């Protein structure tokens, strides 16, 4: 017989009654929200409500950004509690979260992914490379930032951006969709 603490069910039960390991949500700077809100149309708010489906596209990252984006899904950051979730197809996505300096070899794949994403499609450039090519700017093999191929709605700089910074950026996108009227007290 195994000791109890090495078995799955006792651990799961402890998880049910114990304190959550999830971090509290980060505060989103107002300026970011305001800027985004201005750019989003009423129709987008009506259609999406307070949830966003995200499709991640790596366009040349060193995989550092992917590590941190993956970390967003762990139990500590728990992205889904905010109504944000990663989806497996661009056809299900509201947001393309794009990393990397946009290599020439990935340009067509990005454009095709964009074409598969229904409107309104928000494009978030995550990481210094995605913003302007980062250290890879000027190479024969990169175009130098996601904005070279598709219009970018939000940039999240960092090399790589931490999960907290990514969460802050994505939350700002979500907050910006709530119609600009006084929020009810206590509403999350």
């Amino acid at each position, binding site marked *: 017989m195994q000791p109890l603490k090495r078995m799955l069910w006792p651990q799961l039960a402890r998880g049910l009654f114990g304190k959550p390991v999830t971090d509290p949500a980060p505060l989103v700077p107002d300026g970011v929200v305001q800027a985004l809100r201005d750019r989003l149309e009423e129709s987008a708010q009506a259609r999406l409500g307070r949830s966003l489906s995200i499709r991640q596209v790596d366009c040349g990252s060193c995989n550092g950004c992917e590590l941190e984006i993956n970390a967003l*899904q762990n139990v500590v950051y728990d992205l889904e509690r905010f109504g944000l979730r990663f989806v497996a197809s661009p056809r299900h996505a509201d947001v393309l979260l794009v990393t990397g300096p946009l290599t020439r070899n990935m340009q067509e794949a990005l454009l095709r992914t964009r074409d598969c994403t229904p409107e309104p499609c928000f494009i978030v450039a995550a990481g210094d490379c995605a913003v302007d090519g980062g250290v890879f700017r000027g190479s024969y093999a990169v175009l130098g930032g996601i904005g070279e191929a598709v219009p970018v709605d939000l940039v999240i700089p960092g090399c790589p951006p931490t999960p907290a910074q990514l969460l802050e950026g994505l939350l700002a996108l979500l907050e910006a969709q709530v119609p600009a009227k006084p929020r009810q007290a206590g509403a999350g």
Partner: protein
Amino acid sequence: MSLPDLLRRGSPQDCRPVPRFLLTRPQWGALAEDLAREDSTDLLGLWADPGMVHAALWAEGAPHLVSCPAPDGRYPALSPARPGAVRLERMIHDLWGHVAEGAVDLRPWLDHGRWPSIAPLSTRPGPAPYPVPQPVFLAVEGEGVHQIPVGPVHAGIIEPGHFRFHVQGETVARLEERLGYLHKGHIGLMLGKPVRVAAKFGARLSGDSTVAHAWAFSMAVEQALEVQPSPRAAALRGVMAELERLHNHLNDWGFVCNDAAFAFPHARAGALREAVLRACAAAFGHRLMMDRVVPGGVTDDLTPAGAAAILAALEVVEAAIPALVSIYEGHASLQDRVVGTGIVAPALVARFAAGGHVGRASGRGFDARAAAPYAPYDTVPPVVPVLTQGDVDARVRIRIAELGEAIRLVRALLAALPEGELQRALPQRAGEGIGMVEGFRGDCLHWVALDDGGLVRAAFPRDPSWLQWPLLEAAIEGNIVADFPLCNKSFNCSYSGVDL
């Protein structure tokens, strides 16, 4: 002619820690024949510069470097003797334009026909093809064979690459990988840069191995310039490299379980990994410890509270491992998916000289920390686990064993952290060197040549994945398509690392 005889006839070039032997073309041809006859010599790497092709070999417990001039852009191929050379020869052709005569495969590799020119690193880059050529895949014949194209954009949050499956029923008859989507022109960007600037590209070859690659690049530069990092810098590098191993192995272990739809270990391993990354951020100011290792030493000392943060995280991880192992072993639904899946035969691993957990799960016990010891591992040697089953489970178990070993090494290094400066000054002069560092994936090999002003004249970073990716094709053969994610995650090869 044996390798030692061949080397004696070559002309030794100034490279450290071992000279690079310049062979004539007939001698290089003899080397290819010798490799075909002799199994004991491993091909670790193959690369080029505008006028020459270079190879790194491993024989009798030591590295050997050889070069072959290619003034007319041709050199005798090594791929008939060493299958690991196939993609490297294709890469050399795409970047420098040199043609491997008698090569097994001459199809393009990194060049998808979308760059402004062909052979961008050669002295005379040519015009790009128009229209963009379609990729050609190896054919499979048989009744009911169909193809499944996957990627470059995948369903998960992973790097881009194209997998072409030829499937008969549920069974994979052949998988062929097509990579290169992440080609950023690493080598071209490093040329002509001071070593501190070039180190940034070393650190961004593969983000999950940023410490190992930055260290291997720094080691090559330090060898070239005959600078020894201080004992403190070496120990701090060791701490960072082991923490990197720890967080990656935790991540991959969790993901293997998740790919078998067993969520608990994934959730638990993710939380443990987060604890390690936060300790890294507290101790070194960056979660992945990027740009902390530089030629000459390290940029930052451990923060005052750093050691305590690391030790606290290690304690949490260590305490959780036995329960995770027990859950991993104790559930038939999980064991059924991993045991006997994706087997790579030891003979194949040996032929490719694959390192890391891929090699060690199939009987090849090569570990750069033990095979070519460097500070600080000369004082705290690692215990290298080796298994022979070669399946997904064996690769996971190698990683589990290395988790414990990484924890032990970090503790040993922190307990006896020597005093000393963080960085030593680098002279600005010419030199050439190689560095090999064991990352979590395997041996990261960097070669660098500096010009008279101390700027990078030529460089090549060889990620361990070069020699592991082809084995994934072998691992999945005869398995079902649904087991591909398990096999892929148990390897976890780097896309960015080989796309350069």
